[in-house]
């Protein structure tokens, strides 16, 4: 194969039909940018879900009038659970620490007006397996040391419903994202092949002449395939940079707000992992280039029946 000849042909024809080439680049740009944005969002949601799961934690509040012996009995109970592999770890938060955390979160002014410290001491327990939260929490429901109001378990707090709902929502959104991803990938192929078909239709005379002088089908195809490849590559690189800048901007914005727990990832262009086996930019670029080349081949099929 005469690589340099086909490449020169492809570039020459793109120069001559630059309006069409621009249209194709923009098409690829839009499709891959949307695709990239969807993938980045998916990735971040995944990350968020993992974060949430790691944060599933049981807070056990201790009755203010408990004796040190009772508290250490409670701690022993947690230690036993830990040795059984149900609990990953725990921290003790004293009344003073609780107040400090409260102060940090809600400001000095509210705390300054409090005559006494109303916050109880607590144990924050991380469970080993999120699915077992209920079982672990139940161990403390009837413990006298725990600050339950009579007849309730409100001394044991764990993000039962909230977390479940959030995880449920995230997995739903993720499923939706898959659907969107597939639809946009299909749309991208169609758009590209339509664009290529238009450009081939505009040059059907050229193709006719090629066949008349005895060009083999592959000889006719290669310049078009290269053209699609270059177009796709170019559009997708633009899209990759666009998505990257967008992600960077949004991540920085989120960092500066209250919804920080989403912990959006700031990608590097070459970042690998998640949905990016080759890194964000290379994956998108390769994808775009393939879309372009395949689009060209699909569009050419009809024109090359002998």
């Amino acid at each position, binding site marked *: 194969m005469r690589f340099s000849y086909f490449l020169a042909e492809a570039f020459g024809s793109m120069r001559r039909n630059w309006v069409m080439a621009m249209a194709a680049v923009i098409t690829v740009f839009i499709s891959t940018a949307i695709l990239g944005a969807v993938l980045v969002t998916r990735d971040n949601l995944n990350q968020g879900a993992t974060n949430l799961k790691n944060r599933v934690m049981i807070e056990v509040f201790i009755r203010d009038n408990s004796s040190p012996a009772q508290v250490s009995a409670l701690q022993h109970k947690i230690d036993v659970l830990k040795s059984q592999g149900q609990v990953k770890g725990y921290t003790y938060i004293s009344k003073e620490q609780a107040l400090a955390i409260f102060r940090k979160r809600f400001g000095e002014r509210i705390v300054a007006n409090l005559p006494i410290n109303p916050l109880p001491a607590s144990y924050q327990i991380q469970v080993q397996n999120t699915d077992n939260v209920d079982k672990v929490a139940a161990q403390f429901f009837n413990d006298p040391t725990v600050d339950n109001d009579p007849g309730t378990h409100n001394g044991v707090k764990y993000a039962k419903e909230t977390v479940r709902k959030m995880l449920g929502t995230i997995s739903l959104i993720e499923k939706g994202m898959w659907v969107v991803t597939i639809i946009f990938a299909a749309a991208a192929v169609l758009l590209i092949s339509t664009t290529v078909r238009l450009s081939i239709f505009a040059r059907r005379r050229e193709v006719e002449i090629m066949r008349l002088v*005895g060009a083999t089908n592959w000889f006719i195809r290669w310049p078009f395939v290269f053209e699609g490849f270059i177009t796709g590559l170019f559009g997708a690189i633009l899209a990759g940079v666009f998505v990257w800048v967008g992600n960077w901007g949004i991540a920085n914005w989120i960092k500066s707000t209250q919804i920080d727990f989403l912990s959006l990832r700031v990608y590097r262009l070459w970042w690998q992992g998640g949905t990016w086996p080759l890194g964000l930019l290379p994956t998108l670029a390769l994808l775009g280039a393939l879309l372009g080349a395949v689009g060209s081949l699909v569009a050419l099929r009809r024109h090359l029946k002998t």
Partner: protein
Amino acid sequence: MIVFEDVTKVYDPDVVGLEDFTCHIGKGEFVFLVGPSGSGKSTLIKLVLKELRPDTGRILVAGRNLGTLRNSKVPLLRRNIGCVFQDFKLLPNKTVYDNVAYALEVVGEPRRSIRRKVPEILSLVGLAEKTNSLPHEISGGEQQRVSVARAFVNHPPLLLADEPTGNIDPETAVGIMQLLVRINRTGTTVVIATHDRDMVNRMRRRVLQLEAGRLVRDERRGSYDQVTEEVGDAF
């Protein structure tokens, strides 16, 4: 070179392209195909190029049976047939040089030999000065010479021309014909479909006359019309 045996080609709603057409065109011959529009001249040329397939009958080109020729071999067949058309069929975005070079690129000719052959053939057709012009910058006669140059640059054993002088003025047409005669002298078989009465009468070559897809006359040193034929023979 070309053998048609009982070839019939009917286009879709009952339009006859060729009917029971039989003829032999030998190596090195110079043949005119004459007849009114729609008499089957272009059909014949398309059949030789395997752009069309006959409904019945057998076609041999350079000893190859087109009926059994695989599709993948069609490009090879076409490389051995030079083609000249009424509308020139030049690539509008390529220079004169590149248009001719294209026929060689397709065959996989090394670049060095392309650089040698293209100027050679362009000076043969008298276009050495126009090498870098684009098709729309030169006259119709010149464009046709570019197309002849492209058809002949491979030195194919067979050259087909469909109304090569149809779009150019009579004086320029003479130049094109002389070019085709010169090509014929190198041993290339030349088949020309034409309406150009003067040209055919002047040249006195073999004439195949078609009417409604049938061969109605095959004459050694014929003229355009049957009547003048006797006159021609008397001389």
